[in-house]
């Protein structure tokens, strides 16, 4: 443990942000990406919640990794994730009630988010707590930035606002501009995610399938 942040740790953190992004490359967690991205605020809160939960559940599972019997590991992982999700959900209800209402069931559904189980199985079960924590942060942020970008375009073109503040001026509405109703509907989130994947693969040729 010479350096706190070694090159390997750095790679663990940066990988999921781009070349190994949970949404655009592994195509996990799409369901919630469609559901919560109609507005920026819930998308941001959702991204942060997932980041916190995946980071800390990674740490806890990594600490327990040598004592968990292999045959019941999924149950143990679920218990840990469910406990963290409940804590986050209660905190949101207490301190950000409006957002928690907007997110409705999707906070609870983080338990079933494939990114979490994927990271626990693929990384935390075989790595030390510090690396697991960094890996959780990286994947959480990788998930969060896609959500924020999608929500940015959906809220801007669908509602004409950002974080609830009106951005498109009234003069444009007077001139005949109309908000795009399709942006509010989930299919458009899918198309926007597809666009991000398109740009991403065009810039990273090694990701393109033959």
């Amino acid at each position: 443990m010479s350096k706190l942040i070694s090159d390997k740790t750095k790679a663990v953190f940066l990988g999921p942000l781009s070349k190994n992004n949970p949404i655009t490359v592994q195509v996990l967690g799409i369901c919630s990406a469609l559901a919560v991205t109609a507005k920026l605020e819930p998308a941001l809160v959702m991204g942060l919640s997932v980041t916190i939960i995946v980071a800390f559940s990674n740490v806890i599972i990594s600490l327990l990794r040598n004592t968990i019997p292999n045959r019941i590991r999924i149950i143990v992982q679920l218990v840990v994730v469910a406990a963290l999700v409940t804590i986050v959900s209660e905190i949101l209800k207490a301190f950000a009630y409006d957002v928690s209402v907007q997110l409705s069931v999707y906070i609870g559904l983080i338990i079933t988010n494939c990114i979490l189980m994927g990271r626990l199985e693929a990384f935390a079960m075989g790595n030390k707590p510090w690396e697991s924590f960094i890996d959780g942060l990286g994947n959480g942020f990788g998930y969060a930035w896609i959500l924020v970008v999608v929500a940015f375009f959906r809220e801007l073109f669908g509602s004409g606002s950002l974080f609830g503040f009106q951005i498109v001026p009234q003069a444009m509405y007077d001139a005949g501009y109309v908000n795009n109703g399709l942006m509010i509907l989930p299919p458009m989130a899918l198309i926007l995610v597809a666009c991000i994947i398109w740009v991403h693969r065009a810039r990273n040729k090694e990701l393109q399938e033959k």
Partner: protein
Amino acid sequence: MSNKLRKFVDKLKPHFSKGGKFEKLHSVFDGFETFLFVPNTTSKNGTHIHDAIDSKRTMIMVVMALVPALLFGMFNVGYQHYLAIGQEVGFWDKFLFGLLAVLPTVVVSYVVGLGIEFIIAQIKGHEIQEGFLVTGFLIPLIVPVDTPLWMVAVATAFAVIFAKEVFGGTGMNIFNVALVTRAFLFFAYPTFMSGDTVWVRVGTTFGLGGGSVVDSYSGATVLGQISVSPTSQVALTDITGNPLGFWDGFVGLIPGSVGETSVIAILLGAVLLLFTGVASWKTMFSVFAGGALIALLFNLFGPDTAAAHFPWYNHLVFGGFAFGAVFMATDPVTSARTETGKWIYGALIGAMAIIIRVLNPGYPEGMMLAILLMNIFAPLIDYYVVEANIKRRLKRAGNK
């Protein structure tokens, strides 16, 4: 004439070839040249049988088949306008009003669509593909006359990029591009694509027409009137309150999207398409048959609503049913390609369209959604038809 044109094109050619002044515009030049003259290049190896008409000639045939619907649509736009404001004017005044009202949409759809096609062809080094000739003509015919032009532009751009180019361009698209344009408009700007204020232009067009509408005016389409009717029996009216029947729907002097109202004009196009063999009569016929059958079933056993009681023969002439059956369902790229598959594909489109109309009050017209839905299933239908054929022949071979 044609010789002179040939010489002129040949004279220009070196400028657009490699090393010429306008090398960058090669694909544009190539597109125009092959549009004017059938290319005389032949395949270099193997034996190929070429059809006498290539896809540019096929597309032009479809455009010509659409002309009656467009001309009638233009006249009808003017007719509805002067009916709404209660003025008596001559035939040419009505036509001129409609011409000026519809022409901007045609121009916008072609400029945006072809512009994107040219740019993408240039980037990828392709030839310019001709598929947009038909799409650009269809778009103005399937939208209400009052659709704002910028919306048409946005929707056309969306459809050309996401429904066509990302799949590989002309001939590779899964969905009918013109219908994706309409679907985009329908879901993105619902207030401009449905309701009872968008189908008739009551304002002026380039200074022509205009005035206050007559007292009895109501701009709802027939299918719109049915979907909002509280009782199961509904008296259909035109925009000034006169009763409407089957023959009004057949002739088409009723409010609706520009090209969809007149079954006569659509049938003229259908005759040309069938005569030249561009469209399949099996698909066309089975759409009408499937729609008629399901509508008849609803008439006999359906729920007690106006849409279910709407006579089956009326279902076929009102709304976009006939237009969709003739020009959209038969699109050779997105429809089923096996002969048996065409029957199944067409019948399911007709059936779905009527089911959506009758059972979903949110969508008075189901033709667009029915065709888009069946576009997805066309390859699956073909797959099972081919598999069944293979099985049958294997069995026959095994019996010997």
